[in-house]
């Protein structure tokens, strides 16, 4: 496979123009740490953002940072941390799950709309993305949004492109709004709850005025009962007050233990990265549903999936399943649909992901709109063909 590593937007546009002219299909890659996410792409050439790297703007007092798409995410998070700031959406690191190495990039996070536990309160990557520069499938260098927090000028292509998995355009620069790191964090843990009770507890916490930034449930393991976890963040006096108030609220669900600072951070990193599935050979599914649908969904999946993790108050369901056959595709998509949501096959061998729906297909007329959108960015279908759906 030919590898292109353009080092400027103009070079990038030239690569796409040439592919378009020659009728070559182009795979699009950042750090490649999430290459297992989506359908396998069949392409003769690959364009990598590796040489489009570097922070281009950072104004801490304006809560904004911009970087070229190939910038290692670590560079951005370290620059932010040095000024007591962070990306609000707590992006998952897929490396442990996939066993990949290398560096996740800014462009990859944006293109896959990678978001973690804090999404429940602080939004997804798409909510923090305020500006995007990209080359579309027509080799045009286009921008949308900018570097200011409020901007409704013209169509919001930034959101349309967040989570488009390189199928509409190759990003070359992304601008995010950021937030201060909270002064402290703490996690309240209730042990031994069933999934229905856990979702009730999470829902009570999320419906309280105490603003949890994490609400998850980890299944029982050999040595340990199931744990229902609620994270709060803030300054010391606020943490103390909210711990107290939430403990009262959750008293009917059982005794409460707390995890402080590092222990709290560690457990949320595990939840964020779906760590219980790393190092296993199961296929891994991620279902996004209304939280109150999670208990029935979990019951339906239980015969296939012994271990189920809930995040987002029950709105995000992680499940492992034997990687054989269709890796449960038919049943997971049907179950997600019945629950009012959708499913993604996050991890499975290429052959499986090439043969089944990795992402739940949008219903008929919606799929038609998706195709129109694809055609308006990449009419010849040059970029990452089929990564999301056949032909898209």
């Amino acid at each position, binding site marked *: 496979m030919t590898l292109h590593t353009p080092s400027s937007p103009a070079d990038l546009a030239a690569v796409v123009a040439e592919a378009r002219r020659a009728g070559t299909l182009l795979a699009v890659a950042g750090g490649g740490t999430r290459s297992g996410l989506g359908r396998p792409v069949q392409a003769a050439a690959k364009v990598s953002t590796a040489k489009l790297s570097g922070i281009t703007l950072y*104004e801490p*007092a*304006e*809560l904004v940072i911009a970087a070229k798409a190939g910038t290692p995410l670590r560079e951005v998070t370290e620059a932010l941390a040095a000024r*007591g*700031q962070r990306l609000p959406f707590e992006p998952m690191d897929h490396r442990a799950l996939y066993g990949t190495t290398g560096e996740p990039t800014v462009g990859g996070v944006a293109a896959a*709309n990678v978001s973690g536990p804090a999404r429940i309160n602080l*939004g997804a990557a*798409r909510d923090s993305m305020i500006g995007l520069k990209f080359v*579309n499938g027509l080799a*045009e*260098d286009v*921008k949308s949004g*900018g570097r*200011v*927090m*409020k*901007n*409704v*000028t*013209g*169509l*919001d*292509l930034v*959101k*349309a492109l967040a*989570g*488009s998995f390189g199928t*509409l355009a190759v990003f070359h620069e992304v601008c995010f709004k950021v937030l*201060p790191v909270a*002064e402290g964090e703490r996690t309240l843990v209730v042990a031994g709850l069933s999934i229905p009770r856990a979702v009730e507890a999470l829902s009570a916490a999320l419906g309280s*005025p105490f603003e949890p930034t994490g609400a998850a449930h980890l299944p029982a393991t050999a040595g340990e009962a199931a744990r229902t976890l609620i994270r709060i963040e*803030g*300054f010391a*006096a*606020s943490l103390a007050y909210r711990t107290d108030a939430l403990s009262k609220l959750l008293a009917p669900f059982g005794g409460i233990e707390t995890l402080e600072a590092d222990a709290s951070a560690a457990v949320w990193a595990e939840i964020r990265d779906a760590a219980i599935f790393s190092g296993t050979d199961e296929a891994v599914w991620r279902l*996004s549903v*209304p939280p*109150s*649908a999670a208990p029935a969904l979990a019951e339906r999946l239980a015969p296939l999936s012994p271990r189920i993790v809930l995040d987002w108050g029950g*709105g995000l369901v992680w499940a492992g399943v034997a990687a054989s056959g269709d890796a449960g595709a038919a049943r997971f998509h049907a179950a997600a649909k019945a629950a*009012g*949501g*959708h499913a993604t096959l996050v991890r499975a061998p290429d052959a499986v992901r090439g043969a089944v729906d990795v*992402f*739940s*297909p*949008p219903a008929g*007329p*919606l799929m038609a*709109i*998706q*195709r129109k*959108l694809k*055609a*308006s*960015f*990449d009419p010849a279908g040059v970029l990452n063909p089929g990564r*999301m759906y056949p032909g*898209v």
Partner: protein
Amino acid sequence: MAIAFPAPRADVLAKRDRVVAALRAIVPGEGVITEEKERRAFETDALTSYRRVPMVVVLPETTEQVAAIMAFCHAEGVPVVARGAGTSLCGGSIPQEDAVVLGVAKMNRVLDVNFADRTMRVEAGITNLAISGEVAHAGFFYAPDPSSQLACTIAGNVAMNSGGAHCLKYGVTANNILGLKLVTVEGEIVEIGGGALDSPGYDLIGLLVGSEGQLGVVTEVTVRILRQAEGARPVLFGFREIAQAGQTVSDIIGAGIIPVAIEYMDREAIHICEAFAKAGYPLDVEAMLIIEVEGSEAEMEAMLARIVDIARRHDVATVKESKSAMETAAIWKGRKSAFGATGRVADYICMDGTIPTGRLPDVLAGIDRIVKGYGLRVANVFHAGDGNLHPLVMFNVNDPAEQVKAEHAGEDILRLCVQLGGCLTGEHGVGIEKRDLMREQFTEVDLLQQTRIKTALDPKWILNPAKVFPLDAPRDEAPREAA
């Protein structure tokens, strides 16, 4: 007049009777408005200096009716301007003589409230405030709070991606919508998203929010609702120098404190609003910040102590905390009625640019210079935390020359915003008002990418024509199909 409307199409006007008959067959009774004096009620929005009486107005009551209307208008090539409450400040809902106004105001029911999932499904014509009103008894609310919230509809909010004073913490409309029911231009009904936090495929909700009625008609919306904070307290900070206020905002955010709201008013705005709302604003200062914090009593105290400390470092002249719910209400009434109160003093046009917050002093000096250059006055109210400016340029509507000057001043201000790294509009939208300025911010290919999407979803360009894109914006000839 400065902003051009395309000439009404004779072929469309010629079939008016047929259009009316078809609409009557779809929407029975009083839902089709044909009398000229009744149509006149729909001739403008909050950009009142421009008016066009529409060909006919239709007020459907169901999504199926909307679908039938769209199918007919699309087949016949008749322009359609969707309308909520008509409070757009950028002329986004101003019709044209050959257009059908499709008003969703009668579709205003609450369809479902789900406290466990913290979501609510409503018809698109419900007002912003009625959504919060429906769940207030349980201590919940819908967060984006445009000052027009008593009147404006969620349909309009979705179309404009509206913001409000409390967006600094809670985000704008786009961050608070989970699902839409959309009628396409061809009259197809599409459900997008729903109760889950995201939906499969491309983020169509993200694309549709803020699309100003260009891509389809929204008939239902699923919003996130949130639990109210235990308490909220606004504090007024008066400064003798504008720069001190700007520096205070930067330092608060730089210190890692994100209040719920940071609103800025200059001397002119303070005086106008105080006369109207009797909110106790300090009258002897050049600039005032309203900073609101939320939480329990102890949390608010702790956060305010830090904020006050920062303000004192910048020689704040007055610090005044709200001591009661009544004072809180008065403080916000003053701010939220800034436009109305200014309207009692003079006619005005309201600009809506955004700038990087660090450029606040530069932009204020620039606005002052621009407005004085035209011999006009300005009152400035800003969402200072996110750099969204609302200079209200005042003029006398009975003096056409002065109106033109005001429009030019407004345009110069927006150009300045873009030059300083900002944008033309932070929350009010482009509409007709900023349509011809789009090239200040976008290149031809930037615009072309947008018009391609428009063409893909509205091939005949009948939805809300002559808005958002310059009339001569680049377009591909034919809709493109994937290979």
